[in-house]
């Protein structure tokens, strides 16, 4: 049993946790819930030795422990799988898993054969099909996350903390992970599971623990508690009734000529409504026979069309080529791509992102930290980065124009920042994502491609992003959404393409798209 008593943690004067008490029982999966900034990660970092100075005490197996570093925590059986990955990119999968606890031969040399073998077994348990000798850098984010999980499994930890373990992995891997969690539970281990995906928590958690604004709110059994009740405890306010009203008021005069139906998009904070044309508007983006040749991962003869005002969802398991498809259209794979893309009848060059931007295509990438924002630049500078030439007079940047542009999007997207000059690295994930959206909206794109747009951001920001997608589509923008979360895709998309192993295997109108259909088309034919 792991008990935390009256934990308080301050960061240079700001209280992150206040008098938090916690009891974790063996053989249970404990769901830790709370909005971003509630203190979940901080608490887990204290339990796993990342932050050695805090007030209060931690009892593990009846004795008080105070870990000076993660190594000590690991040695006594507490492992954490961080949301941000801690892998060495240029070491192999096996080398990463055994980093710090290498197996040696009797002569004291590295026993690579045994490590490779052990790694293969671990990967098999996780249903991850990668070579133990593959460099971690060559894996996709989702695969890297599974490697991180494998690392924790290796250490036979008694307490395993998982911080958003499924934020980047596909359904197949999630299922394998849940099987493993069930096994670990049977072995009597303590699992702490942090996730924004409530469905997952209902599927595997035994108990819930809710934090809000750095305080402990409530703990209890998952059995018997409802979806809405749990959310209410997390956000501490009534479901967003305002939203409902606004949706309701949007019936009335037709804006676009085509007959419209109302779409309802349920979110955890209420329902968003959208007026959707029953007939498709003209084609906007046309992709013909797109192929990508790059080592083992390729795209094969992909053709599809995106219509004006349409939200096109793309579903697929990990490695199906969804991200690569968006990247190819955006010009990130240059010479390795063949095929034709046209926008509004005009051919689009696939040579560089600059060409794509000029043509009116925007991409909000999957990995916000790596590809989305420049953390050391300010909010204003990040928002203005895509349109600088327009913000200059005779080559001289105009402070006024920059300020106006940044102000406009901080207002319309409700970006929470203390000032325009705040550095982006100090903002929460949801607000960083809004900044990436803002810099693209500033270019006035006709096609907006979103790769996992709500990954790792809190419920409130998620709702806002859904609402934005709907609004933009209503204004006639063509939107492509790639997502691993099926409910999300089914909620926002008008049509769903399914990809498998680099090809498009099916396309469904939203009426025929069911979870069953999508999954069937996404699974490779054996």
């Amino acid at each position: 049993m792991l008990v935390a008593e009256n934990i308080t943690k301050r960061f240079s004067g700001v209280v992150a946790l206040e008098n938090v008490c916690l009891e974790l029982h063996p053989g249970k999966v404990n769901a830790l819930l709370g909005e971003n900034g509630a203190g979940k990660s901080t608490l887990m970092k204290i339990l796993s030795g990342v932050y050695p100075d805090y007030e209060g005490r931690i009892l593990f197996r009846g004795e008080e422990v105070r870990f000076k570093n993660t190594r000590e925590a690991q040695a006594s059986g507490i492992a954490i799988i961080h949301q941000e990955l801690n892998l060495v990119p240029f070491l192999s999968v096996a080398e990463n898993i055994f980093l710090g606890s290498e197996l040696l031969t009797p002569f004291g040399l590295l026993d690579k054969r045994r490590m490779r073998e052990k790694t293969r077994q671990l990967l098999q348990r996780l249903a991850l099909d990668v070579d133990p000798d593959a460099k971690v850098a060559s894996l996709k984010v989702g695969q890297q996350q599974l490697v991180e999980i494998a690392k924790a499994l290796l250490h036979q930890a008694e307490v395993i903390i998982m911080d958003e373990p499924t934020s980047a992995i596909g359904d197949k891997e999630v299922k394998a992970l849940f099987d493993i969690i069930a096994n670990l539970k049977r072995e009597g281990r303590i699992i702490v599971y942090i996730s924004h995906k409530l469905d997952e928590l209902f599927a595997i958690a035994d108990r819930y623990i809710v934090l809000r604004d750095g305080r402990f709110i409530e703990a209890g059994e998952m059995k018997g508690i409802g979806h809405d009740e749990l959310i209410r405890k997390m956000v501490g306010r009534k479901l967003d009734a305002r939203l409902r009203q606004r949706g309701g008021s949007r019936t009335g005069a037709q804006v676009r000529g085509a007959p419209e139906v109302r779409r309802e998009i349920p979110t955890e904070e209420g329902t968003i409504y959208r007026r959707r044309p029953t007939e498709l508007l003209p084609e906007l983006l046309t992709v013909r026979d797109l192929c990508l040749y790059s080592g083992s991962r390729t795209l094969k003869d992909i053709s599809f069309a995106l219509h004006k005002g349409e939200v096109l969802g793309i579903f697929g398991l990990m490695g199906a080529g969804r991200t690569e498809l968006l990247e190819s259209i955006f010009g990130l794979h240059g010479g390795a791509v063949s095929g034709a893309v046209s926008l509004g009848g005009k051919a689009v060059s696939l040579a560089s992102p600059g060409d794509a931007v000029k043509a009116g295509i925007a991409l909000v990438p999957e990995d916000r930290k790596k590809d989305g924002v420049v953390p050391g630049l300010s909010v204003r500078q990040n928002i203005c980065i895509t349109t600088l030439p327009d913000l200059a007079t005779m080559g001289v940047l105009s402070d006024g124009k920059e300020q106006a542009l940044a102000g406009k999007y901080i207002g319309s997207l409700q970006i929470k920042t203390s000032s325009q000059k705040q550095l982006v690295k100090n903002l929460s994930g949801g607000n960083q994502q809004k900044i990436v959206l803002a810099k693209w909206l500033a270019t006035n794109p006709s096609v907006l491609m979103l790769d996992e747009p709500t990954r790792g951001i809190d419920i409130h920001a998620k709702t806002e992003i859904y609402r934005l997608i709907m609004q933009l589509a209503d204004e006639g923008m063509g939107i492509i959404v790639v997502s691993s979360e099926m409910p999300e895709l089914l909620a926002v998309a008008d049509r769903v393409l399914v990809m498998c192993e680099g090809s498009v295997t099916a396309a469904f109108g939203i009426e025929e798209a069911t979870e069953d259909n999508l999954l069937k088309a996404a699974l490779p034919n054996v």
Partner: protein
Amino acid sequence: MAFAINTTYRQRLSKLQPLIALFVLCAILGFLSDKFFTVTNVWNVMRQVSVNICISTGMTLVVLTAGIDLSVGSILAFCGAVTAGLLKNGIEMSSSNLFIGFTILGASLAGLIAGSVLGWFNGWAITRWKVPPFVATLAMLTIARGLTMLWTKGFPITGLGSRFDFLGTGWFLGIPLPVWISGIVVIAAIFITNKTALGRYIYAIGGNESAARLSGINIRRIKIIVYTIAGALAAAGGLIVTARLDAAQPNAGSGYELDSIAAVVIGGTSLSGGRGTILGTVLGAVIIGVLNNGLVLLNVSPFWQQVVKGFVILVAVIVDKINAKEE
């Protein structure tokens, strides 16, 4: 709220650190040596520092993109030699009985163009072939030095005439000409970094190259421009050095890349890119110049001077790390 004010105050203070260090240094040297604060000496230091300021301004731009340029010293020597050679001997083609003479302006421009071309080559190798900047410019360090030796045949080119030497030794409106040159360079660079898209892109590339690329910025073009500017500014330094000594020495500028990197680092620019200012670099260059000058005035052995300089660089980086942590 009090907390927020406190942080900005501290951040401002950390930006002022190089300036405070400079004042303290000057106060100590002024106290120890009565020659330090004489007008002659002050202008002397400024004149010496202006070469490093030229070079380091280019170096700052390069370092802001998370790059490095080790070839500035060699480029400086080559361009000085090209200018001196053209000015003195012109180009003589005995086969066609052709002789091309050069004016001071023509020869100087030729030197600047030569520097730009070598800098462009650095950028091209780095962006086209993905050669790490350290290696590409290390290669150029050798290449440009070899070219200098070939051009001068290993002997200094001297006797360039007082009108050319004016560039290094002259005065204009009571200020030495090298100070004018470096001042203009600095103002132009501050303008570029703060007020143009190019400057913003330089910071963005150093801060997160991948995000910059995905924002549609042409990374290759920006980097090539930056290395070309660095080459041109090294060449400008070469003109000043050559004019001051009235000679293009084949081994001029060796080791200048280290003083230049030191100035950039002392000025608070992060070697991992994306963070730093031109003004910081100017202060860094002045600190090194004052230190050199002061230690000479105090009759400290040149060997000790090197030791002291090394420690100053180390302390500057450590202080910077501590600042970064507090942020």
